[in-house]
């Protein structure tokens, strides 16, 4: 892993060797309407994210990075442009179709973990599988595997309030990978963690990317977190500034 981002030219060279993009964005825009005024949040974004990438989206507050992540994850709809994930133009899907698509293709990791406080770690991880046809025993097998992978096999019966922040985020990561999604989206996954827990979570994400080939898109403010990614894309005032290689890919 390199501490210094590489140039756009180097990235272009990488892109030529990369597999086809799993996320293809063309002239994407998003604006919100406040009263009778349209407030632009993203303007004319064009971006390709190759399969197996670990991309960090960086930028100051209000730069539109979380909005871009939400659009890619299908929890928000663009105002214009084209957004294709895994070859599917998700901007054209209905709410119900989007919900099914997210369940099958997207793993979410949130800054504040967003676990159900009344469910155990096991039940939280099992939650997305309730939308599948898997049998109870298959679900159990998968959940146990996912929790083992994040190092929480001995915390299955614990409730979120019985776990540390880092442990809760690892449960959230287990929940994100339980359906074997096409894409994992992480919004400030280390934003609420201490340094040690943040490092553990980033190492885990890196492991998912390197060893399991998971495509991860992560929004972060933290330059330290960026070092775990392969590429970093900078945004400012809703515009894309460029993409750089972070580590030695």
């Amino acid at each position, binding site marked *: 892993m390199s501490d210094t981002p590489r140039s756009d030219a180097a990235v272009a060279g990488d892109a030529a060797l990369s597999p086809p993009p799993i996320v293809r964005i063309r002239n994407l825009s998003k604006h919100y309407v406040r009263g009778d005024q349209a407030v632009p949040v993203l303007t004319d974004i064009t971006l390709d994210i190759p399969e197996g990438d670990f991309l960090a989206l960086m930028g100051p507050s209000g730069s539109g990075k979380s909005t871009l992540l*939400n659009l890619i*994850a299908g*929890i*928000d709809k663009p105002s214009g442009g084209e957004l294709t994930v895994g070859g599917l133009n998700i901007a054209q899907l209905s*709410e*119900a179709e989007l*919900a*099914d*698509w*997210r*369940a*099958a293709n997207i793993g*979410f990791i*949130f800054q504040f973990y*967003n676990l*159900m*406080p*009344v*469910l155990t770690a096991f*039940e939280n991880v*099992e*939650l*997305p599988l*309730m*939308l599948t046809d898997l049998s109870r025993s298959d679900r159990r097998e998968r959940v146990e595997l996912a929790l083992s992978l994040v190092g929480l096999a001995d915390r299955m019966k614990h409730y979120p309030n019985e776990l540390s922040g880092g442990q809760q985020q690892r449960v959230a990561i287990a*929940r994100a990978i339980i359906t074997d999604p096409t894409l994992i989206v992480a919004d400030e996954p280390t934003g609420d963690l201490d340094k040690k827990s943040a490092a553990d979570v980033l190492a885990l994400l890196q492991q998912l990317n390197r060893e399991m080939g998971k495509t991860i898109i992560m929004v972060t403010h933290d330059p330290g977190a960026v070092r775990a990614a392969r590429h970093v894309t900078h945004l400012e005032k809703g515009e894309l500034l460029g993409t750089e290689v972070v580590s030695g890919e």
Partner: protein
Amino acid sequence: MIAKLIVKNIFRARLRSLLTLIGLVIAVLAFGLLRTVVDAWYAGSDMASANRLITRNAISLTFTLPTYYRERVRAIDGVTQVSLSSWFGGIYQDPKNFFPQFAVTLPTHFNLYPEFLMPPEQMDAMLKDRTGCLIGRTLADNYGWKIGDKIPLQGTIYPGTWEFTVRGIFDGKDDGTVTRQMYFHWDYLNERVKQGFPRAADRVGVFVVGIREGDRAAELSAAIDAEFKNSLAETLTETEKAFQLSFVAQTETIVAAIRLVSFVVIIIILAVVANTMAMTVRERVAEYATLKALGFAPGFVVALIFGESLTLTLLGGALGMVLSFPVIATFKSFVGSIFPVFRLSEATLWWQFGAVVVVGLLAAVLPAIRSARIRIVDGLRHVA
């Protein structure tokens, strides 16, 4: 999973859920109690038979009829038997010890009321004793009276001291049958009246008329009244139910007020549960948004909210319904002398059940709509 989420969520804010449950229990109890009071008000008319008519003086119930009308009524085709019945209005020891007493024709009167169950030997004993009386089981239990006991009454309409000997105790066919009254021989009353007030003798309060076919009640009522048209004492004949309801009608406003209060209680608890659900949903907006982000349809979130609201109200409702039995039994011990029949009916239980279901559903409507409509990105940003 949905059931697990519902049950676990209910007891998340324990104090709030507990207070809401207590409110529900009290509301369901109050609703059941008030409806039971309304039922008790109509108990007399509910036990009325379609095969019995009441013939009274057309002017007012306070005016009597000559007893010789009895034979003319009995002669009308379709009439099976006729009993005389006069309200006695005696006082047992103290006016507060109120219970109804009637002078009737025996055994005809009991033939007209097959819902009164009594061993035949007790009726035989009654027929042999001019000053005997028959009392209902509830009345016997209230005062601890048994067969052979003497009951002294102070006459009000018929002055003097009257003493009766208990010759029979009758039970009701079911717990809706009123058994809190006393019957004695109309002939005995008439004898005493002849001695003290000859001008009032051979007159009766009402005739209880048995008819063969209940669906001819209107026709036979008209026939009886036509029989005495333009006489000195014209009659008014109506079904026993209509006769009983004419008493209830005098207190219709009170009954209407009680009914209204019973529904107000439900509206109040609806507001309480709706507030609980609104607070609950407001606190969990981020959770619902997370569920939707994970791929759960808005309908799942709506089902969670309705499920939680219904489970809460059904739990409170079930507790309230179970507690209604002892509470109403206790209440009965205080108001037994006012209401001859005071019991929690099956209909009231269904009303209670229906009320909690309606409250559970209505309380969840607005929170469910709100949670279904909220955008995921807005919900994820939400801080409770």
